[in-house]
């Protein structure tokens, strides 16, 4: 069979013909990629760059392009004196730091249990995964009812087991963010478990057998074999979970609208309110770039840490 690759052609017909063919192959590849790239350019890259430009302006988009007013760094300067932005920024970080380790740890434990020690694995995996594929709006509405302080099921249960002053959940400024975190952990668990399970399938069974022969117990095997073997999977999960956590919005929008008193306001929610309810596109763009930088810096630091470990 004749090969059509540039290398094979070079071997038969010389270097000029090979370069020409390689160029054709490259052009074909770029042509097929172009469609996706054009979409990325039009709907992602250009809007991101436009947002950067708008972050230096004051603009109510209803007034049209003629209403754009350049104001320099005013929007960025305003961020430092905006208590709601500062609260939202801190809440976003707290949400991510609280949710990611808890969710991943639970996923790891449940993943190991589901992988080895349980009957009816398929059904249980489905049960854990269902929240992840459910509409976050529907999930949030259900949790709002569960969290009702006076007679919601959660507080009714807590009262029945002797806790006389259960938390006010969504209606307490000390507990509203925790409530959002709980919902986030519950919803993300399924996806994390599936990723962990996939990682566990890739671990060589002979390692466990050897460890058993050497007398290792379940806990020792978990820490000495399972966790090190899952390091790549964990790295991926941590990255994805943090990036997703920084973008939390739906649960806040549906359940608390950032309240009570901005105690559960997060960056994306505040950006949304500023852009679309207060029509301050410039300021919202500045905040969205701060969020972008937060995620970007996190990704760089995490990659650098990973490289050092390798």
């Amino acid at each position, binding site marked *: 069979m004749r090969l059509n690759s540039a290398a094979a052609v070079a071997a038969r017909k010389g270097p000029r013909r090979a370069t020409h063919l390689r160029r054709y192959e490259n052009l074909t590849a770029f042509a097929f990629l172009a469609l996706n790239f054009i979409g990325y350019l039009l709907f992602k890259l250009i809007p991101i760059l436009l947002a950067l430009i708008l972050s230096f302006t004051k603009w109510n988009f209803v007034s049209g392009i003629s209403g754009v007013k350049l104001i320099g760094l005013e929007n960025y300067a305003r961020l430092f004196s905006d208590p709601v932005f500062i609260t939202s920024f801190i809440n976003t970080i707290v949400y991510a730091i609280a949710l990611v380790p808890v969710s991943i740890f639970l996923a790891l434990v449940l993943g190991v249990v589901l992988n080895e020690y349980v009957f009816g694995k398929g059904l249980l995996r489905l049960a854990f995964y269902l929240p992840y594929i459910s509409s976050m709006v529907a999930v949030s509405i259900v949790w709002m009812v569960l969290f009702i302080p*006076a007679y919601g099921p959660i507080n009714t249960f807590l009262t029945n087991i002797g806790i006389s002053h259960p938390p006010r959940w969504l209606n307490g400024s000390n507990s509203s963010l925790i409530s959002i975190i709980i919902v986030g952990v519950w919803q993300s668990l399924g996806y994390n478990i599936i990723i962990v399970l996939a990682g566990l399938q890739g671990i060589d069974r002979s390692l466990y057998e050897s460890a058993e022969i050497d007398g290792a117990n379940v806990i020792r095997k978990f820490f000495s074999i399972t966790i090190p073997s899952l390091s790549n999977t964990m790295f991926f999960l941590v990255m994805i979970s943090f990036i997703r956590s920084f973008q939390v919005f739906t649960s806040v929008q549906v359940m608390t609208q950032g309240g009570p008193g*901005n105690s559960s306001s997060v960056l994306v929610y505040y950006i949304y309110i500023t852009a679309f309810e207060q029509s301050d596109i410039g300021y919202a763009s500045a905040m969205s770039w701060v969020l972008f930088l937060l995620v970007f810096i996190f990704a760089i630091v995490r990659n650098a840490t990973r490289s050092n470990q390798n």
Partner: protein
Amino acid sequence: MRTKIAIFAMAMLLTSAIVFAGGSAEKSSTATAGPEKVYWYAWTAPANMVDLIAAFNKKYAGKYELVYQKMADAATLTINTALASGAPISVMTQASAFDLRERADSGVFLGLKQFFDKAGLDYATVFGKSVEETMNFNGDYYAVPYANNINMVFFNEKMFDAAGVPYPQPHWTWSDFRAAAKKLTHGTGANKVYGAMLDVAAPNGDEYWATIAQQKLGSFWYYNSDFKTTRFDAPAMKESLQFFYDMFMVDRSAVPLSQYTALKYNNDTNGMKGLYSGRYAMWVAPVYGSLYLMKSYGEVPEGTRIGLANLPRPDGLSQSVSTTYSSQASIPKNTPDKEGAWAAIKMATIDNAELYAGQKAMNPGYQFSTNAAADAFYKLIFNDKPGLDVSEALKVMLLPRELISKDNTHIQGQAKINELINSDMTLVFNGEMSVDAALKDLKTKGDQYIAADMNK
């Protein structure tokens, strides 16, 4: 390889041709001869537009054709997106005074005084002094109210009968309201029945906590007369917030904030459902709340009797004062036919309001010239509302009352003040902030926000 490239290139060309052809077809279809299309944008259920469309198209046959474009809702984003989309909009409706002012200041809307002058109409005479005050921006008007949403109290007559509580009197006071709510509240836990349901502090909600203050202070209730400072330190503000705080947190006779936001009683359809289902005995809502007794919103149980009462008056005021807010119609500056748009607005808001506001059980934006006209209109809006005590409702609506507009069209500091009100009031009605602390916070920061905006 060459064949593959050729196929790919052909596919791209074909796709482009289809896309451009579709665009051209759309453009050419809008350029056909015939009556000028007047595009009315609103969130009204299409069934409620049928009569207006039919009447307008009959009156202006051959000249204009009213075309209804339904929006998903009245949210700021929905309307702004439509306005920014470049679609031909002849009339845009909205229910937020703040948004109206922003859009007017951004140059989106056409000044309407020219049309009023041409038609020989005086805005204040047609719509009332209070409405005129709030809609007048530097001597021009950028919206026409098609509905004046008067706040009333709907009550479950059967629950009143069962508790032995007399029905609300025409000029009852807030003290009467509070006493009735206490008597009507009973039960515990999930089975607790409350005396009243009113939205005091849901974000961007009705803010009924400020009602007494609005009744006493009038239009632009939290601005001082010079609009340079706020009046959250006014005695009426403390009286208003303290009153509702006591109802919610001391008497516990009103549905708590945590419950009504979770169960969505602050949504109009659910609000009425909660009332006739016996979750609470009184519901403070605009007069169009009766719309939600219609079959299309759910089957009303047999034997339901819903009464209508005036909004209570503050102790010390001798006559009934109701707060209202308007739903308005505006003409975008880039509308294709200004005269056609004005014709549609005039018909829907002044000449034949029964065809628009009437279909939605809304009180019209204009003032009634005679009691007979009012009676006829209210008979229309209360018609076909199973469970409503229509004769009582008619009597109550014809009672004299002063109307205070809640529409706040003064822009300085408003966005941030409203955000602060949302934030502080959720803390107050969750028991985390005292009344005095909240009002002090609103006064201090509110004044700062106004000053900051004025310095820009």
